């Protein structure tokens, strides 16, 4: 794993990272091979007195080979990507917690449905810039925006989704480690874009139950 990659604390983040590393190795090998050949050719075929360049217009066998080889690699990459992409984006698995997110210039409003489990009721609770969730539970996010496009980015979860005014977009994650993490906005949203920052609090089951108790005690 590359040292700069933030730690991963989501169930599907590992798959993204593996795919990243697969592409990293493929591109590294191609990079070394191509740049190596380039430098080698520059040295070997530098102009020297008495030697003339080879007269060649090409080679059809080679053309076919270097058309097919990258095609195969790229198609395989697309197929490998497909399963992970569908898992993350296509369907929301059965979930334990649902939170509605309203992005706005320049804050995140996290809305919890409260004990009745339904939104738009009296016991809804809005907490600004703080998303509190239980560990090892599937969390569904219903994302909207009140003004312009924002993008909810949780680097440690490998989660990113634009939030769109006028359209609800659903996403999900399951965090595997307790702690507090940052939620920056990743889509330019105006002069306050930088510093539009929320926090994700992943709590153990007991701590989460305590937190829920505190929030809806009165």
């Amino acid at each position, binding site marked *: 794993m590359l040292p700069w990659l933030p730690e991963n604390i989501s169930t599907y983040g590992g798959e993204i990272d593996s795919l990243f590393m697969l592409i990293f190795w493929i591109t590294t090998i191609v990079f070394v091979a191509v740049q190596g050949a380039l430098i080698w050719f520059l040295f070997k*075929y530098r102009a020297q007195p008495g030697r003339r*360049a080879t*007269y060649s217009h090409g080679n059809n066998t080679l*053309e076919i080979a270097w058309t097919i080889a990258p095609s195969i690699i790229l198609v395989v990459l697309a197929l490998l990507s497909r399963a992970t992409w569908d898992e993350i984006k296509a369907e929301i698995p059965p979930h334990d917690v649902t939170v509605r997110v309203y992005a706005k210039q320049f804050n995140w409003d996290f809305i919890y449905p409260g004990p009745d489990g339904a939104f738009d009721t009296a016991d809804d609770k809005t907490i600004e810039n703080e998303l509190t969730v239980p560990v090892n539970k599937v969390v569904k996010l219903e994302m909207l925006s009140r003004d312009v*496009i924002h993008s909810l*980015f949780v680097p440690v979860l490998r989660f990113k*989704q634009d939030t*769109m005014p006028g359209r609800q977009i659903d996403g999900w994650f399951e965090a595997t480690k307790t702690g507090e993490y940052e939620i*920056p906005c990743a889509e330019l949203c*105006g002069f306050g874009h930088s510093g539009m920052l929320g926090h994700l609090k992943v709590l153990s089951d007991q701590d989460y139950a305590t937190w829920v108790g505190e929030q809806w005690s009165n």
Partner: protein
Amino acid sequence: MSEAAVAHGHDEHHQGGFVSTYLFSMDHKMIGKQFLLMSLFMMIIGGLLALMVRWQLAYPEQPVPGLGWVPEPYLYEGIIPPETYNMLFTMHATIMIFFVVIPILVGAFGNFLIPLMIGTRDMAFPVLNMLSFWIAAFAGVLMISSFFVEGGAAAGGWTAYAPLSAAEVYTGVGLGQDLWIVSLVVLGISSMMGSINYITTVINMRAPGMTMFRMPLVIWSLFITATLLLLALPELTAAMAMLLFDRRFGTSFFLPETGGEPILWQHLFWFFGHPEVYILILPAMGVASEILAVFARKPIFGYRAMAVAMIAIAFLGWVVWGHHMFQSGMNPTMGMAFMTTTMVIAVPSAIKTFNWLGTLWGGSITFQTPMLHALAFVSMFVIGGLSGIYMAATPVDIFIHDTYFIVGHIHYVVFGGSVFAIFGAVSYWFPKMYGRMMNEALGKIHFFGTLVFFNLTFFPMHIIGVGGHMRRIYNPLQYEFLQPLQHWNEIMTIGAIGLGLFQIVFAVNFFWSMFAGAKAPQNPWNANTLEWEAPTPPPHGNFIEIPTVYRGPYEYSVPGMKEDWLPQAQPGTGVGVAH
């Protein structure tokens, strides 16, 4: 019109005064030079904007050295406020893409090279050509003037995503964003005029014997680029008009509260925007192909494959736009489709790279300045191409989308690719443009400095992108998880300053050589293509006699011949069937 009539028509406005020779010239060569000078001037502005962006990222909210005099609200005693920062990167990208790379590659070299390299006296429509430059210049004035109106210039990113760009209330930018829209529409009109001219000229005015598959690859690339521009620009113009109407006339194409759809803007913008990316790189590929063949003294490897690969890129370029929108909320099933087309479009780029390597294989390579830039183009384009695969894989894109990884990728393609090709093209065709050689020592200093500092500036962007560093943020220190990456920001800024300083060498070389360089011979590089048949610098009407073409453009090192080049116009038969 017969050949003689064309020549006669030219004679009539041959003797012009200063105004008709240097300002309202209808000579394609002068128009090309006008585009070149305008774009180099815009490059200085775009570069200075980038340096300010880099300063803020490395030393957030510290006064920019030497800019204490800039009045509020642009800067506060030299400190860049967030509103200005958003303007800086928005205008940097807009200027570099629309007023530097396209006008140099398409406007300057398209104009200069097409008639000379296909063997004709001028463009099909010289008046239209003249208008195309002055309309572009007017668009440039509109764009620059937007800095000085109330609220400042556009600050919604060069992609102008609605609704941020569609209502003044979200950014505080009023007239500036309107001017941005109008300027790009006006520039689009200029490009349309140019495209029509290029396509007509290439189809109808080739010299006798110049079949399509005897055309140099740079002409193929410009022809394909003109076609892309012709098809893409009306769509952008329509989108821009819709955006302007939303802003000023109460329509609601992109404003959701009154029934509009923000994601529609992204579809419209990228349906233009992706062909646009290829508009930026295809002519650069053509330039590199010319230079590599000449300085390797070898025929282009796989000429037909090279031309067909460019045609394939031009077709596939229309069906990949959704890969900019994987995280936009677009139906995830479409993500699959766009990932597949995106992977497919990587193949012709790979084919081109392998053919460039094939061209070098077995060559007799010399390393003058144009060749160094062409080689850097290939090398840097490979990095830009490979880094694109990360974004194409949709799950990986979830993480690196809108991070510095994409900023690194685009700069490896557009600076590492297009701009190195531009430097290569300038140094290669300068003798034909100005009749003098550029200084070789200064050329090499500029090249190596640019190569080193380019990589120092842009390679670390991949690293901080992997670290999750978002693009377009004003102050990285506001984020705890970005603190450990901050030293990279300083390194990149030092790189950018070095990169900027080495461009002074280029400017000195360019202007000094224009007036005091060594006189250029007619064919300084012993090249085959037709522009070298014309006198140096070519007179009005280009050729003393229209050449006849006998073979393809890349007959170098033909066995059994004394010379290692065989010009397209040299009478004779036998060799030269490109395959």
